[in-house]
C-alpha cells in the first residue's frame, strides 16, 4: 500500500456531522491511535482527556478544538467511563459505527491486557513478601489522598447553592445508614428532576 498515488491520498474522507479533516484516515489508524492513548495514559479518564486532545486535535488535526470541547461536556455528563465514552464519541463522529468500535476497543484493550497480567501475577505468586506489603501500605494512603483531592475538585466545580447541604446530607446517610449508593444516586436524580428551578441550570 506504500505506492498509492498522491491523487488517491487526497481523497476526502466522508465525515459524519463534524470534523473537516481532509485526508486519508483509515479505521485502522483510529484503532492504533486509541490503542496508544489507552496504553500510555496512567490515571484513568480525566488524565486521558488532555492526551486525546493533544493527539487528535493538535497533532493529527482530525477534530476541531470547538468540537472537542463539546465532546468533553457530553462525555462527562453521562454515566460511564470517560475515556471509553470519549473514544466511542470521536470514533463514531469520524468513521461511523466502525470507527466507534475501533476507537472503543482500542482504548480498552491495553488496560485489560495489563491488568490481566497483573492479576495473574498476583494469583500465581501467592501472599505478598513483607516489603511489598509495606509498599501497599503507603499506596493505600495515596489512594485516600487521591480520593479526597478528587472530591475537593468536584466540589469546587459545582455551582449548586445547596451543595454544602447536599454533600453533608449524603455523607451523613452513608455513615449512619446502610442505604445502597444505587438508591442514593437514583433518589438524587429523581429529586433533582423534580425540584431544580427552571433557569438554575445554564444551557448553551
Amino acid at each position, binding site marked *: 500500500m506504500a505506492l498509492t498515488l498522491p491523487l488517491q491520498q487526497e481523497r476526502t474522507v466522508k465525515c459524519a456531522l463534524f470534523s473537516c479533516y481532509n485526508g486519508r484516515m483509515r479505521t485502522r489508524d483510529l484503532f492504533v491511535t486509541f490503542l496508544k492513548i489507552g496504553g500510555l495514559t496512567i490515571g484513568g479518564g480525566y488524565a486521558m482527556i488532555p492526551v486525546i486532545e493533544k493527539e487528535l486535535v493538535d497533532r493529527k488535526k482530525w477534530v476541531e478544538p470547538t468540537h472537542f470541547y463539546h465532546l468533553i461536556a457530553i462525555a462527562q455528563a453521562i454515566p460511564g467511563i470517560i475515556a*471509553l465514552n470519549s473514544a466511542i464519541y470521536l470514533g463514531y463522529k469520524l468513521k461511523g459505527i466502525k470507527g466507534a468500535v475501533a476507537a472503543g476497543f482500542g482504548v480498552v484493550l491495553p488496560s485489560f491486557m495489563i491488568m490481566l497480567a497483573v492479576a495473574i501475577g498476583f494469583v500465581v505468586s501467592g501472599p505478598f513478601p513483607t516489603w511489598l506489603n509495606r509498599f501497599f501500605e503507603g499506596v493505600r494512603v495515596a489512594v485516600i489522598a487521591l480520593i479526597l483531592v478528587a472530591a475537593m475538585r468536584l466540589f469546587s466545580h459545582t455551582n449548586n447553592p445547596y451543595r454544602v447541604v447536599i454533600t453533608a446530607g449524603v455523607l451523613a446517610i452513608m455513615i449512619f445508614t446502610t442505604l445502597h449508593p444505587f438508591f442514593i444516586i437514583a433518589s*438524587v436524580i429523581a429529586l433533582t428532576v423534580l425540584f431544580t428551578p427552571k433557569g438554575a441550570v445554564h444551557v448553551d
Partner: protein
Amino acid sequence: MWINLWLQFFLIGLVAFGGGTAMIPVLERVIVIDQGFLTLQQFVDVIGLSQMTPGPIAINAATFIGFQTIALTEGIWVGILGALLASFGVILAPIALMSVVLTFEHKPAVKAWIRRILYGMKPALVGLILASALSIGQSINGTWVHFLLLIGLIVGLLYTKVHPILFIVSAGVFGIIVL
C-alpha cells in the same frame, strides 16, 4: 456465579456517574460489602494498582476482580474468561447510553436534562466519595506518620503539577522505608 459477576459489573457501569474516582463508592459497596469479591484492603490495593497502570479505573477493577473471582476456584485459564465477562459487563451500559446520546444529542432538551441531573448529582457524588474515603481510611491501622503522609500527598496533589503516579509510587517507597 458467572451471571452474578456480569450483572454486578453491568450495574456498576450503569450508575457510573463522573467516571474514575467518582465510581469508587459504588465499586466499594458492591464488591466489598454486597458481594464479598474482595476484602476492603484488597479492594484498596486494586484501586492503587488501577491508578498505577494505564487505562480507566473501572475496566482495571473489573478485569482484576473478574479474573480473581473465577481463577481462585476454576483455575487460571478459566479466570481469563471471568476477566472478559466482568470487563464486558462494565462497558456495556456506557456503550448503550453513549449510543442513545449520539442519536439524540442535537436536541437541546436532552442537553438540558443531562445538565439538570448533574446539577444535583455533583454535590451528592462528593458526599459519596468522602464516605468511601472514610471507610477506606478505617482499613488502615493509622498512626500520625500515616496522617502526615496523607497531608503531604494532598498538598502535593493540589498545589503541584507533578503526575499523580509519582506521588503514588513515592508513597509506596515511603511505606517500604518508614511504615
